[in-house]
Structures are given as C-alpha cells and as structure tokens.
C-alpha cells in the first residue's frame, strides 16, 4: 500500500516526484493500430448485437441505433485520446513545430508569383495586354519570385529543427534590435513622410528592420559558436520560448520582407541608422564574431552611404534603384561575414 505521509526528517532526501513525461514513458505504448482496431472491433460487436437482437431486419430505427452505437464508441475513443494526449510520451515538441512555418509560407509565395507570371502571359495571349505592358509586369513579378527563391535557399541551407529554432531566436533578437533602431529613426521617418508622402514613411521602419537583421544574426550566431556559456543560454532560451519567438520573428521578418518591394531614399537612410542601432544592441558579442560583423557593417555602411548620397532626395525612382543595389552590396558583405565566422 502506498503511503502518502510526508517525511519529517529534514536530512532525508526524498526522491524527486516523477515528471509527467516519466509517468507517460513508463506506461506501455499502445500502437495506433491497436487503439483503432479495438474501437472498430467494439463498433462491429455492437452492431452485430443490435442486428441479432432485431433478427437482422434493417428498419430505420435499427439503422439509427447502429449509428448511435458508433457515435458512442467514437466518443469514448476520443475522450480517451483527449486525456492520454496530455501526457503522450511519443509526442515530440520539436517535430510538432517543425512542420509549416516560414518555408511553407515562402513556397506559397513562390507558387503565387509563378502563377502570376503565367497569368500575365495568358492575358497577353488572349489580347488583354500589350507586349510592353506584359513585359513590364512580368519583369516585376520575376524579380519578386527570385527574391523569394533566394530566401528559400537561405532556409534550405539552415535545415533541421534545431537550426530552425535557433534561427527563429535570432530573428526575434533582430526584431527587437530593429525596433529599438526604429524608435531612434522615428524622427527621420516623420521627416520622410512629410517630404515624400505616406508610402515612403511606411516603408521606412520595415526596411530598417530588414537591414538590421543580417548583422545581428551574424553576431548572435558567432557568439554561440565561440562562447560555451552563450551557447547554453541559447539552448535554455530555445527550450523555453522558442515557439513564441518563432511566431513573432516570422511575422517581423514577413513585415520587413513585405515592404522591401518599395524602398525609397528615405528607407535607405533610415536603414543605415537602424543598422547602427542593431550594432549597439549587440556590443557584447564575441570578439571574433564582432570583427566579422564589423567587416560586414563597414562594407554595408559604405554601400548604404554611397546609395544615400547618390539618390536625389526628391527622386524616389532613383532612390529605389540605389536602394536595390545597396541591398545587394549588403548581402554580399554579410556573406563575407559568414565566411569569417566559419573560420573563427
């Protein structure tokens, strides 16, 4: 008989109470086919009994009774699953959150853009569009599709559930850093909105987040690589709050990506400031990683500054073009940073 009396000896080390997982793991696993087979068997036996009791004469009430029996057994089965799933030992949290997410979202975006291109071609062939209009629209759609494909490649390179969680944690930090930078840049945004209209102003903070992201990501990753304590912290944070981070970071990144389509001179200007803000937030990263990140920052900063100077303040079109090239330069700088990181 189990005693539930509490020990009074303070020196006695009582065994730690078993966790829910331990209890569940100790229980004999019930394969799915056994569970389902038992349910189907119970339904079949009940139906047999109902049929036998009614001399196998199928009347509407007998059919309804059989349906009711099926519903009863199903209810019991699902109620049991309702309870057992709260302590399911076979349920892996990592696997659970691994599906879907950003990659699926990107795939969907890509499919939509590919269909969009096909639709424009179809409209051209059915005579709704001129060649010039169709070419212009296809060009825009192709650029966007390639951006998505590149993002997908980055996703694929990361691969694995742990990497996914780590990346999402990093994204959260990026978003926070970018938010801080965004606040700093508010004044600039207001100025931009007065000067160039609301559209440019809205794009600015999002672009700022986007620009801040690569550098902060690099820094955090490098910190984890060289500093065991930081890696432990990362693990703890991962297990505690990863899903939260995942959702929020995904959204932040999606917002930033969404506004990349219409950069402007103001956005570029704010982006450089946001980058500085992000740098400040990651000041205590490992030296080696910092060196790598600084290399990237320097390259990117130069590109951005050049772009800002080149863009005429009132010419948004030119600003957009310059911004695009600034983004390209920055991404190559980041690749360089990543290579440095590997060597560290």
């Amino acid at each position: 008989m189990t005693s539930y009396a509490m020990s009074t000896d303070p020196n006695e080390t009582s065994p730690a109470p078993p966790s829910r997982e331990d209890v569940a793991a100790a229980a004999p696993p019930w394969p799915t086919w056994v569970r389902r087979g038992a349910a189907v068997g119970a339904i079949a036996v009940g139906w047999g009994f109902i049929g036998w009791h009614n001399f196998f004469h199928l009347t509407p009430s007998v059919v309804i009774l059989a349906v009711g029996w099926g519903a009863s057994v199903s209810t019991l089965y699902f109620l049991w699953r309702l309870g057992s799933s709260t302590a399911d030992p076979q349920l892996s949290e990592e696997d659970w959150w691994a599906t879907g997410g950003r990659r699926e979202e990107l795939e969907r975006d890509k499919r939509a853009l590919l269909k969009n291109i096909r639709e424009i071609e179809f409209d051209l062939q059915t005579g709704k569009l001129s060649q010039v209009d169709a070419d212009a629209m296809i060009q825009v759609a192709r650029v966007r599709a390639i951006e998505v494909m590149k993002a997908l490649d980055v996703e694929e390179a990361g691969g694995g559930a742990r990497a996914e969680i780590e990346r999402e944690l990093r994204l959260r930090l990026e978003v926070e850093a970018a938010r801080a930078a965004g606040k700093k840049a508010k004044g600039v945004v207001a100025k931009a909105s007065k000067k160039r209209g609301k559209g440019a102003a809205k794009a600015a903070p999002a672009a700022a987040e986007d620009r801040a992201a690569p550098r902060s990501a690099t820094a955090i990753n490098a910190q984890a690589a060289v500093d065991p304590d930081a890696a432990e912290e990362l693990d703890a944070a991962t297990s505690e709050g990863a899903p939260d981070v995942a959702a929020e970071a995904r959204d932040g990144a999606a917002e930033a990506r969404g506004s990349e389509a219409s950069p402007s001179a103001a956005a570029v200007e704010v982006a450089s400031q946001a980058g500085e803000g992000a740098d400040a937030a990651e000041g205590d990263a490992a030296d080696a990683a910092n060196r790598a990140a600084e290399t990237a920052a320097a390259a990117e900063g130069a590109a951005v500054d050049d772009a800002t100077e080149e863009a005429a303040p009132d010419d948004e079109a030119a600003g957009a073009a310059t911004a695009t090239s600034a983004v390209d330069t920055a991404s190559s700088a980041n690749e360089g940073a990543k290579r440095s990181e590997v060597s560290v």
Partner: protein
Amino acid sequence: MPADSALSLNSSPVATVGTITLLAAYLVAAWTVAAGIAGNVRKSPRLILSSVYGLYAFAALAALASALIVYAFMTHDFSIKYVAATSDISMPVWYKLTAFWGGLDGSLLFWVFVLGVFAAIAVRANQRRHRDMIGFVVATIMIVQLFFLSLLIFHKNPFSTYLTNPPVDGQGLNPLLQNYWMVIHPPSLYIGFVAATIPFAFGIAALASGRLDNSWLASVRVWMMICFFFLSFGLILGGRWAYEELGWGGYWAWDPVENAGLIPWFTSTAFLHSALVQEQRGTMKVWNLSLVILTFFLTIFGTFMTRSGVVQSVHAFGEDSVLALQFIVFMALILIVSFGLVLFRAHRLSKALEFESFLSRDFAFLVNNWILLACAGFVTFATMFPTISEAVDGSRVSVGPGFFNKWMTPIGLVLVALGGVAPLLAWRKTTRERLYNQFLFPVAAAAVVMGGAALWPPTRVLTPIFADSINLPMVLVTLGVIAFAVASIAQEFWRGTAVRRRQTASDPLTSLIGLVLSKRRKYGGYVVHLGVAVMFLGFAGKAYERMRDRTIERPNVAATDGKHSGGSWFEVGGYDFFYEKLITDSNDNRTAVFAQVSIYKDGELISTEFPAKFSYMRSEQPTTEVAIHPRVTEDVYLVLTGYDGESELANFRVYINPLINFVWLGFLLLSLGTFICLIPQRLVDALAPRRRTKLGRAAELAVALLVGGAVTLGLAQQALADDAPVRVAQAGGEHATGMGVDGTGYAHRERPESEVATKLMKELVCLCGGCKREDIYSCKCGYAAGERQKVNEMLRGKDLSTEAGRQQAYDEVIRAFVANYGGEHVLNTPTNSMSWLLPSLAAIGGLGLLLGVGLRWVRRGQATLGQLSAAPAEIDPEYGDRLDDELRDVD
C-alpha cells in the same frame, strides 16, 4: 429550474441518455476551449492535441444526441415533448427525419451536429498545416458550440419530457413542411450557415496567433465556397418549395426568412472575390477578415431573425424573447471580440491599398465587393424596416416584394454586368488600346439582342426602379445585360481554348477541358457567372407572368360550340383546359381532393394534371397542392383554389410563367461552376498523366453527359412528379373548400374592374392573418375577396379616363385604406421617407467614396509601378534560369 431545462432529468430512457449526452458535450466543449487557448498561448502541443481530440469527441457526442432524437421520432416516443409536437404515428419515415429540424429545439441540435461534423473535417484537414493556430481555431468553434449548446441545455432542450402522462399520438408536422423539398432545403441552408463558422474560426485564430500571412486564406476559401454553394442550394430549394407548396405562382417573395439566407450569401460571395485580390497582391487583409467576420455574424443574425420572432414571416419559428436576448448578447460578443482583435492587429494588417488602373480586374472586384455589401446592407435594412419603424415611432409598416424589387433589380443587373466586364480585364492593368478588341463582341451581342427584343412591344414596357418617378424598360435592359455577360464569358472560353490549343497542340475539346482544369477557379467562376446570368433571364420572365381565375360548374361537360370553349372548357394564355372530374383519395395522414384537368395546346392533348387540396388529420388548414406542366419556354401552373364536393363545382387559378425554368437551369450551372472551383489539385494531377485515345475521350465525355443528363432528368422528374391519385373515390365525398356562400371560389370573386383597381390590389396587403403577406390581388382567401370588393366599389363613379383622374382615385383609395386600418402596414410599399432616403444616401455616398478613394489608390499604384518599371532590378542569371525551369511546370 425551468421545466425545459436539461438539468431536470426524466423517465424516458432515450430522453435521459440524450440529456446526459448534452451535458457531457457541454463539459467536453468547455475543456476543449480551455485546452485550445492554453495550448496555443503556452505553445503546448499536448494541450493542443487534447483540444483537437476534444473537438472530435464533441462531434461524436453531437452525433449521438442527434441519433437519439431521431430514434425517438422513429419509435414514436411521445413522452418527449419535441417529438410529440412535431410528429405523429402516421407520418412517413422521411417526414419523421424532417421533423428533427422542423422545430426550433431540433433545429438547434441539428446546427450543433452539422457544425461538429464540419469542424472535425476542417480541423482534421488543417491541423498539421496550421499547428501554430489550430488551438485557437478549435477554441473559436467550440465557443460557438457552447453558445448553441447552452440554448439547448438551459432553454430549448429537445429531450425534455412531459411531467404528466404523455399523449398517445403527436400533433404532427406542419403540413406545409410535408414536402420532399423540405427534406433537403433546411439542411442545406443550415449547412451554408454552419460552413461560415469555419472561415470565421480561422480568421479569429489568425488574429489571435498573429499568423497574418495568406496561409489561413487558403484553408478558408474552400469552406467559404461550401458556404456559398449550400446557401445558394438552400435558397433555390426554398424557392422551389414555395413555388410548389404555397400556390401563388412565384418562388421568391423577399420573406424575412428567405432574406436571412440571402444576406450572408452576399457577403460570402464578396469574400470569394476579394480573397483573390489578397492572394494576387497581398492587400485587403482587413477587408477580408471583416468579410469573414461579417458573414458569420450575419448567419447568426439570420438565425436570430427566424428564431426570436423579431420579424414576421411565413416560416419563422415564433416569438421567444428569452432566446432573442441570448442571441443579442452573443452577437454583441462576436462583434466586440472579433473587431477588437482586428483593431489589436491593425498595425500589422494594414498595407497601403493600391491599384495600377481602374481598368483592372482587381478594381472590378473591389466594385463588385462594394455592390454586394450594399445589397446585404439594403436587404437587411428593408427586412428590419418594419421592426425599426415600430421601435422608433410606433408606426407599423409593411415592406412588400415591390419595394425590394425596385431596388434590387437594377443593383442585381449591375452585378451581372460586372460578371461580364471583369473577365475581359487583366489583373493589375488592362492595356487601354486592347479594350476595344475585348469589348467589341459582348457589346455587339448586347446591342443585337436589345435591338431584336425592342421590336416586340411588351419589352418596351416601362418599369419603375428606385422610385415610382424613375421608369426604364427593364426587360430590355435585362436582356441586353444578360447578352453582354453571356457573350463575354463565351469569348473568354473561346479565346482561352485557342491559346491552350496553341500551347498544347491538342484538339479543341481537350484544350477546353485542360483549360478549365488548369484554371479551375477562374473558369469555374465564369460558369457561376453564366449561371447567374441565366437565372436573371428567368427573373425577367416574371414580367410576363399571366394569371387567370376560372370557375367551372360541372366536370366533363362537352364544349358548347364543338370547339374548346364552354361546358367544362376554359382557355388561358393559349392553352385549353378541360376539367374532367373530382377525385378523393385518403390515407392515414391526410385526405386529398384532386381535380383531373387535361391541358391542350393547338388542339393536341399535352398533359393531364391533378391539382389538389390536402386536408391533414392533425391540421385544420387545408394545403394547396399545385400541378405544374413544365415546358421549355414556360410553366403551366394550375391551382385548385376551391371546390364543392356535392356539385363538383371547381375553382381554378392558372398561371403561365414564361422562362421560369431558366431559374432552375441557372442554378444547375452555378452548381457546376462551384464544383469546378472545388476540384482538388490532387484529382487533377491524378487525371493528368493518363493518355487516352480520341475514341476513349469521346466515350468518357458521352458517359459524363449521360450521367449528368440522367441525374438532371431524374431530379427534374422527381421535382415535377405529381402526386397522382392512387385510388378513385366517390365524387363529392368531401365538403366544400375555398368557396363563398354563393358557391363561387373566393379567388375568383371581385376581380379588378380597371387597371387602377389592379394596381391598387397589388399594393394592398391582405391582413387576414392566415396568408403569407400576399397582396389582395393574389390572395385566395375570402377576406381578400372582401377587400377587392371594397376597392372596386370605391373606384366606381370616379373619373378614370385621364391620368390625373386615375392618380387621384388611386391616392384616395390608398388614403382610405390607411385611415381604415390605422397605419401603413396595409401597404406593400412604405411611404415613410426614411425607407428610400437612407438607401439612396448610402448608395450615393458609397459610390462617391468608391470613386474618391479609388482614384487615390490608383494614383498610388501607378506611382509604384512607375518606380519599379523605371529602375528594373537586374536578375541573377542563375536564378533566372531556375525560375524558367520552375515556370515550365506551372500550367
């Protein structure tokens, strides 16, 4: 504790188990809500999984409760009040099943059951894809379930039993509901209503979880399409039921219960269009979420309208103030929580809306959305106007079909026209120079049709729209708009097939099938548009409906002139009718009196019909069973309005309904289009690789056509099958029905003596209390005959030779009736200025807003396009090649 409460257990085993099942379901639902929300908030897969299984368990419990109540019907367990109130021993099995949802309590349980099944399917299909929000989805659905379950448990328990001795037999189902259409019409409407809950749940879950990309939209679209289809199906079946069962020759009377299904239909249709814009451009997220919320809200609002007694209707469930209050609280919660979440996430949802051109499909969809929303707003306003008017200033008014038609006919035609315009436009922007090429054929088709139709004078008859002072030849306009829409869609199919042929080098039929299957939503949508246009052709036919009443004193009397006139012969609309005999037939459930009437056209017998009057054992009010002889161009619709069993005198009303079958045909096309949209990609992929010979393809097509034709014919036969008398009984065995003291049928008495009298009789509502908001011109009761007599007498001696004299006489009679009845509720069209002022202001304001805001959006879009085109980004050649590779796999 109320006697109806589920907490008072009872003696019937079925009732006891049923009540326990409901209580168990309540507990499971409560756990599921808590586990779902906690699971997603705490990111606990175990809790989420538990909530999912809770939802399945709830569905099984709802199925069990439903099975129990149906079992009680089948086994005549009259100790259960609901069973005793809506069924009796003599009812056929199908009507016992119908009785499940034929009353208020059962209909609520049926709602819970259908939502349980739908929710289980939706969650099963999406739980892997949306793990970060599925807990919220489950919780939202189960909160709705909890509300309905609360109504069942605490207020309308279908398992409540008699405290004293139960009756030996039940009261039977309302005779009007004992019709085969009623077996499927209410479930289809409920399914439509219930299906709107799933998109709502996903929308709320997206807002709650912050997963605001397009992922939820893909899962939701299918369910909204199911909602759209079943609402359409339910509405058309309701129309068919009214056409066959109510005996007034029509199918749509803007009854509040009909409108309750139509209003969410408008918003669901709007969503199906605007969702495409979000998919294409990533914009209109707030709008789409609002439409999802609004559609769900309107389904609950419709349920509230029909179950609270707030509006008067033929088939409302009656007044229930407690239920009304519960619904009002729930509706307020829906609005506050839903739009509160939208506001909470607004900063992440709002993306500057922009359109590159007015001449784009995107903008056409936006216009379409505005109009559909305006339709929903107008129908809601007009339906509720009597209630609002009474609440505001105590004045009672009626809003009859005439008022709705004046507004909805032109708005509906604009929608049909848009259904033709949008396919001719490209996404984002249509090249201006190509417009001529796109619009030439449809406009020419419309011009030819209108020109041809104008040669026939009846099409030029002016009809008032919006107000009596605005008159247009609406039939002509309708025909032109339909021709434009049909030609536009035909051109799209033609050109699309031609492009496909060039791309695949296949034959036209293969190209057409490939085109439709590869772009299912686009071409399925076109078929839906085509169906709506065809339905409007049927609506246009209503303008030429003919109605005549005839009294025939004796059956089977030969013609006096040797031809088809005199004796038992009468003629209406080019058809000759011969009244042959009166037949009585009875069974355990009812006694029927049939009149056997032969119909001749050009001297040839084309059909023998049996219009009848049924008297049900459990109901005092006899029902009218019409006989319909369908022809391609029109229906011959025969009603036995009264008879005298002894003398065999019979009164008939005959309607000739031109083009009415296009309404049903249009619906079949709409269904076909919806099914095309719903074909899953997996099925297309499975069909694609198989190569077939030409002979094989032809055989497949033939089989498909045969099956489709057989199903259609079967349905049509079933729909139109007359309940022919199985046993000829002694003539005169039944007492007289529908007759005045002088032996003449009420419907035939005091017919209008002038055009002004006709107009007046169509404007005045019959207030006998027994008929279905009919005007006194159509109503077949004795009270209406008395009112007609009053109108004729008041007009006698008045100068009706001039327009001014006719108007004066009309106004005087109207004033006299309003004074006599102490209010405007005797009129079909409200004269209160608010009734037209508010919709007019809304229409003009909405149009102005659309143009003003649209201009801004277009300017913004053009600026963005200009920027992107002026500085095109360089494309990485490697990625360019990969993109081309991937594009090859996209159809």
